[in-house]
C-alpha cells in the first residue's frame, strides 16, 4: 500500500488493508490521505506505538454505515452471499424430496448425538452442585479375596470421627447409614428408605432446607424430610413440629419433623427422603457407634471434607494405624487398605464398588451410545455427500454456464458450501427440536425413573456442542461435494461428455461403508432383541410360579401369616426364611481347611427349597426335627465344583462358619438368583428356625392376583401399621428385564434409523447411477433386453457393494459383539447364534431391492426412445 519505505512512518499495514476492504472507493483516497497525514503528525510528536494505536482507533472509527463499500459489496460480498443463499434455498425447494431426506436424516442423527451428549454430560456433572464438592471425599475399604481385590463403599464406624480429631486437614466428617423402615402418619403407611447420619451431613452436602435448621440432626428424635416425602405424607410443606411414626427393625419410635429439604437437583446421585440422627442406629439395630467392629452390615459410609482438595494424600498416613486396629478385631473381614474417593466421580465409578452409596450408569453402555451416535453421524454425512453429488449431476448445465460466464471455482465452492450450511443449519435446529421434544422424553420413559433434560439457555455447552456439530457436519459433509462438483470442466459438461467420463468411486465407497454400518446396527438390534427373548425362555433353575413372598417383621407377623396359610385352602404350602432368593444379596465369610472365602448365603426355613422345587442332586433338605440340622448346610453344585478340595470325599467335607464346623447334608442344582447374566456363584443355605424375615406362600389355582387380594385384605386387617409389601416370586427379575428391554428398545430404534439413513443414501445414489447409464439401458431395451435382465443389471452393482460390506461387516460385527456381550452380560451365552446375522443380511437385501425398485420401475416404464433422443 505504502511504498514510501524510507521514512519510517508507515501506518500499520493491517489497519490500512482493513480500511481498504470496507471503505468506499471514492472515499478511500481522501480518508487514507487524512489518516496518513494524521499518523505522520502523531508519530513525529510521540511514540510510534501510541501513533499506531491511535491510527487503529481512527480506522475502526470509520466503521460507520456512510463509509461502507456498498457498491463493491453489491458485486461481491454481501450480495454474493445473498445470492448463494437465495439460489441455495431455491434448489432446496426444487428438490423437495432430496432436501427433505437430507435435512431429516441429519436432524435425526444430530438429535441422537444431542441425547447422548445429555446422557454423558449428566454422568460428568453428578453431584457437582455441592458446595466445595472437590474437597469432599468418601472413605472406602479395599478388600483382598485371595488375589481378587474388591472396593467396598463402606468403612468402619469410628474412622470418620478418628480422622476428624487426628488429621488437621479434615474439616468435617459425616457417617451415613441407610436402612429400611415402615413410616406411618395417620392412615398413610409405607416402607421407606431411611438415611441415618451425623449432624454434619447437612453441612457437608448442599441440601438446603426450606424449613427448619441445618442443625436439626443434633436432636435424636428429629427427622428431616424431602419435599416429596412431606407432600406424600402431609400433603403440605409447612409441617415442622408434626409427628411421624417409624418402625425400624420392629421397634416403633416417634420422630418430630424438624426440617424440609428443598427439591433435590436432577444431577444428585444420592438424596434422602427421611434423614435422622445416626444415634438411632444404635437404638434400633443395637449397632455400637463406638467400636471398630467392621462386620459388613455394621459399617457406614464415611465422608470427609478437607481444607484443600490436594490433601487427600495426607489421610493415608493415618489409615495405616486404623488398619491394624480394625483387622485385629475383625479376623473374618481383613481390609487391605482404606481409600479416599473424590465425591465428584464417586457415583460415576459406583459400578466398580461393592455396595456403593450412589451409582451412575454403566460406563460401557455410555461408551456404546457414544460410538453409535458417532457412526450414525458419519452415516448421515455419507448420505448427504452421495445425495448432494447425485443432485449436482442434474445441475451440471447450471455449473457449466456459471463457469462459462466467468464464475470462478471459488465462487462455485462458495455456492455449494452455502447450500450445505443451509441444510446443516435447518438440520441442527430441527435436530435440537426433535431431541428436546421427542427423544429425551422417550429416553426418560425407556429408562424409567431417569430425568434427563437439555437446556439450551442454562447450559452454554449445549449450544457450543450444537454449533460444533453444525460446523463439523457442514464442513465434512459439504467439502467433498463442493470440491468435486466445482472441478467439472464446463466444455465437457456442455458437450455432454461428463457422465461417461466420471465414475463415482467415492460414492460407491460411501455406500459400502454405509451398508457396513447399517449391517452392524441391524445385527445389534436383533441381538439385543434375541437376548431379551432368550431371558424370558430361560430356565430359572426353580419354579417361581404361584409363589407369593411376604416380608414380615417379628414373630407375631410370621405366626399370624402362618396360621392364615394353614387355614386358607388357597395356600398349598408355606415356608419361612431369613433371606429370599432373588431379593437378598447377603454374603458371609467361611473357611474351608485354611482357606477363606466369601459366599452368598440364604438362611431358609424347612421346606423352602422343596416349595421352590429346586432339584436336589444329592442329599436332602432341612429337617426341623433333627437337632443336628442346625449345624448343617445345603450347597449348590457350583459350590462343590469350585470349593470342595479335590482330595476330600463329600462325606468328610465340612465348612467352617465363624468358629463352628458345618456338615453338608444336601446339594441342589444350580439356579439363578440375581439375573441370568450374573454368573452362578457358590451358595450355601443355612437353616433358619426363628428369625424369619419372609414367609413364602405357595398358592393353588391359576389366579395368583386374586389370591394376593385375599392375602392383602387379611394383612391389612391384622397389621394396619405395616404396609403390605408382598411380591410374586415370578417378578424378582422384572427390574432386570426392564433394563435389558430398555437396551433392546434403544438398539432397535438405532437399527431403524440406520436402515432409514442407508436406504435414503441408496435412493440418492441409485438415481445417480441409473441416470449415468440410462443410455446403455435404453439401447439394451431397444435391442430386446427383457425387464428381468435390466433389473439384474441395475441391482447387480448394489449387491456387489453389499457383498463387500458384508465381507467386512460379518467378522467385525461378530467379534466385537461377542466381546461386548461378554462385557455386558458375562457368561450368558456360549457364542452368538447365526440367526441375527443372517436375518440382518436379508433385511439389508430387502431394503436395497425396495429402495431401487422405484427407480427401476421408472426405467422400465419409460420409452427408451425418449432417453436416446436427447442427443
Amino acid at each position, binding site marked *: 500500500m505504502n511504498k514510501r519505505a524510507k521514512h519510517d512512518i508507515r501506518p500499520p499495514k493491517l489497519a490500512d488493508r482493513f480500511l481498504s476492504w470496507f471503505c468506499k472507493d471514492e*472515499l478511500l483516497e481522501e480518508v487514507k490521505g487524512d489518516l496518513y497525514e494524521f499518523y505522520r503528525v502523531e508519530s513525529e510528536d510521540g511514540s510510534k506505538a501510541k501513533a499506531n494505536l491511535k491510527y487503529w482507533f481512527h480506522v475502526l472509527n470509520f466503521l460507520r454505515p456512510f*463509509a461502507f463499500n456498498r457498491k463493491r459489496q453489491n458485486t461481491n460480498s454481501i450480495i454474493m452471499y445473498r445470492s448463494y443463499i437465495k439460489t441455495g434455498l431455491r434448489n432446496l425447494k426444487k428438490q423437495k424430496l432430496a432436501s427433505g431426506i437430507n435435512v431429516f436424516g441429519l436432524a435425526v442423527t444430530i438429535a441422537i448425538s444431542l441425547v447422548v451428549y445429555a446422557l454423558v454430560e449428566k454422568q460428568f456433572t453428578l453431584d457437582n452442585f455441592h458446595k466445595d464438592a472437590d474437597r469432599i471425599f468418601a472413605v472406602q475399604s479395599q478388600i483382598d479375596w485371595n488375589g481378587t481385590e474388591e472396593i467396598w463403599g463402606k468403612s468402619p464406624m469410628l474412622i470418620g470421627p478418628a480422622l476428624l480429631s487426628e488429621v488437621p486437614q479434615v474439616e468435617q466428617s459425616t457417617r451415613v447409614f441407610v436402612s429400611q423402615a415402615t413410616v406411618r402418619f395417620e392412615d398413610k403407611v409405607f416402607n421407606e428408605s431411611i438415611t441415618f447420619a451425623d449432624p454434619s451431613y447437612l453441612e457437608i452436602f448442599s441440601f438446603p432446607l426450606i424449613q427448619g435448621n441445618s442443625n436439626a440432626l443434633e436432636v435424636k428424635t428429629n427427622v428431616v424430610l424431602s419435599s416429596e416425602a412431606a407432600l406424600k405424607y402431609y400433603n403440605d410443606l409447612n409441617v415442622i413440629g408434626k409427628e411421624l411414626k417409624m418402625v425400624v427393625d420392629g421397634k416403633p419410635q416417634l420422630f418430630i419433623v424438624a426440617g424440609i429439604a428443598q427439591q433435590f437437583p436432577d444431577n444428585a446421585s444420592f438424596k434422602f427422603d427421611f434423614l435422622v440422627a445416626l444415634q438411632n442406629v444404635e437404638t434400633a439395630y443395637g449397632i455400637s457407634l463406638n467400636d471398630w467392629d467392621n462386620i459388613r452390615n455394621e459399617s457406614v459410609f464415611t465422608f470427609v471434607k478437607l481444607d484443600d482438595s490436594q490433601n487427600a494424600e495426607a489421610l493415608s498416613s493415618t489409615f495405616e494405624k486404623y488398619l491394624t486396629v480394625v483387622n485385629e478385631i475383625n479376623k473374618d473381614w481383613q481390609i487391605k487398605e482404606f481409600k479416599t474417593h473424590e465425591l465428584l466421580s464417586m457415583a460415576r465409578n459406583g459400578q466398580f464398588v461393592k455396595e456403593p452409596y450412589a451409582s451412575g450408569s454403566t460406563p460401557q453402555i455410555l461408551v456404546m451410545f457414544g460410538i453409535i451416535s458417532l457412526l450414525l453421524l458419519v452415516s448421515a454425512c455419507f448420505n448427504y455427500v452421495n445425495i448432494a453429488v447425485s443432485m449436482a449431476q442434474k445441475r451440471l448445465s447450471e455449473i457449466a454456464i456459471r463457469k462459462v460466464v466467468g464464475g470462478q471455482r471459488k465462487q462455485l465452492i462458495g455456492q455449494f458450501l452455502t447450500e450445505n450450511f443451509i441444510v446443516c443449519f435447518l438440520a441442527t435446529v430441527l435436530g435440537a427440536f426433535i431431541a428436546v421434544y421427542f427423544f429425551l422424553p422417550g429416553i426418560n420413559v425407556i429408562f424409567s425413573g431417569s430425568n434427563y433434560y437439555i437446556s439450551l439457555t442454562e447450559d452454554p455447552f449445549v449450544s457450543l456442542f450444537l454449533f460444533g456439530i453444525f460446523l463439523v457436519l457442514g464442513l465434512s459433509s459439504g467439502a467433498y461435494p463442493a470440491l468435486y462438483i466445482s472441478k467439472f470442466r464446463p466444455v465437457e459438461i456442455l458437450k455432454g461428455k461428463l457422465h461417461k467420463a466420471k465414475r463415482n468411486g467415492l460414492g460407491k465407497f460411501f455406500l459400502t461403508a454405509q451398508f457396513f454400518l447399517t449391517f452392524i446396527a441391524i445385527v445389534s438390534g436383533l441381538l439385543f432383541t434375541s437376548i431379551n427373548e432368550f431371558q424370558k425362555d430361560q430356565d430359572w433353575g426353580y419354579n417361581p410360579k404361584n409363589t407369593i413372598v411376604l416380608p414380615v417383621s417379628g414373630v407375631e407377623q410370621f405366626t399370624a401369616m402362618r396360621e392364615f396359610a394353614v387355614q386358607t385352602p388357597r395356600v398349598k404350602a408355606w415356608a419361612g426364611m431369613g433371606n429370599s432368593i432373588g431379593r437378598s444379596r447377603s454374603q458371609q465369610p467361611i473357611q474351608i481347611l485354611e482357606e477363606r472365602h466369601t459366599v452368598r448365603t440364604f438362611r431358609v426355613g424347612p421346606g423352602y427349597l422343596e416349595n421352590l422345587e429346586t432339584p436336589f442332586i444329592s442329599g436332602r433338605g432341612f429337617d426341623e426335627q433333627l437337632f443336628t440340622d442346625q449345624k448343617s448346610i445345603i450347597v449348590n453344585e457350583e459350590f462343590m465344583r469350585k470349593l470342595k478340595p479335590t482330595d476330600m470325599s463329600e462325606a468328610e467335607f465340612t465348612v467352617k462358619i465363624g468358629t463352628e464346623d458345618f456338615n453338608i447334608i444336601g446339594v441342589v442344582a444350580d439356579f439363578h438368583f440375581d439375573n441370568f447374566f450374573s454368573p452362578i456363584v457358590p451358595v450355601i443355605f443355612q437353616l433358619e428356625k426363628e428369625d424369619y424375615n419372609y414367609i413364602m406362600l405357595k398358592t393353588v389355582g391359576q389366579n395368583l392376583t386374586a389370591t394376593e387380594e385375599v392375602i392383602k385384605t387379611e394383612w391389612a386387617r391384622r397389621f394396619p401399621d405395616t404396609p403390605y409389601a408382598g411380591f410374586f416370586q415370578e417378578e424378582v427379575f422384572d427390574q432386570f428385564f426392564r433394563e435389558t428391554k430398555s437396551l433392546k428398545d434403544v438398539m432397535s430404534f438405532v437399527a431403524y434409523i440406520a436402515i432409514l439413513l442407508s436406504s435414503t443414501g441408496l435412493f440418492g445414489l441409485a438415481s445417480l447411477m441409473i441416470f449415468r447409464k440410462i443410455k446403455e439401458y435404453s439401447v439394451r431395451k431397444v435391442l430386446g433386453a427383457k425387464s428381468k435382465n435390466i433389473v439384474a443389471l441395475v441391482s447387480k452393482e448394489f449387491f456387489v457393494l453389499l457383498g463387500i460390506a458384508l465381507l467386512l461387516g460379518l467378522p467385525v460385527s461378530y467379534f466385537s459383539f461377542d466381546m461386548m456381550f461378554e462385557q455386558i452380560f458375562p457368561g450368558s451365552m456360549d457364542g452368538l447364534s447365526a440367526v441375527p446375522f443372517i436375518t440382518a443380511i436379508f433385511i439389508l437385501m430387502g431394503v436395497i431391492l425396495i429402495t431401487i425398485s422405484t427407480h427401476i420401475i421408472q426405467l422400465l416404464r419409460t420409452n427408451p426412445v425418449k432417453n436416446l433422443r436427447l442427443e
Partner: protein
Amino acid sequence: MKGTQLGEFEELVLLIVGVLYPDAYGLNIRQEIHNQTGRKVAIGAVHSALSRLGDKGFLKSELADATHERGGRRKRLFQITASGKRAMEKNHEMRNSLFSQIPDLALKGLNYG
C-alpha cells in the same frame, strides 16, 4: 431526498468549512474544531458529517493535488454551496429570532437559579 435539517455537529462542520475557506478538508476541519471549541472528534466522525452534508447538497467538493505529507494522496477540498449558505442563514435567523423572544425575566430568573 434527505431532509435539509442541520444537526448540531453538522452545523459546526459547515461553519468550520466556511471559516477555513478555501482550504477545508477532513483533517484540518477536525483540527479547527479542536482549536475553536476544544472538542476532540474522531476523523471518521468528521468524514461522516461531511458526507451527510454533501448528500444534503450543502457542500460541494473537488479533489486537489497530491501532496507528499499525505503519502502521495490527494485531498478533497470542501466548499459551501448556495443551499448550504441558505441553511446556515436560516438556522442563524431562527436562533436569533427565538433568542430575542425570550422575556428578560426568564433570563434573569435563570441567572438567579
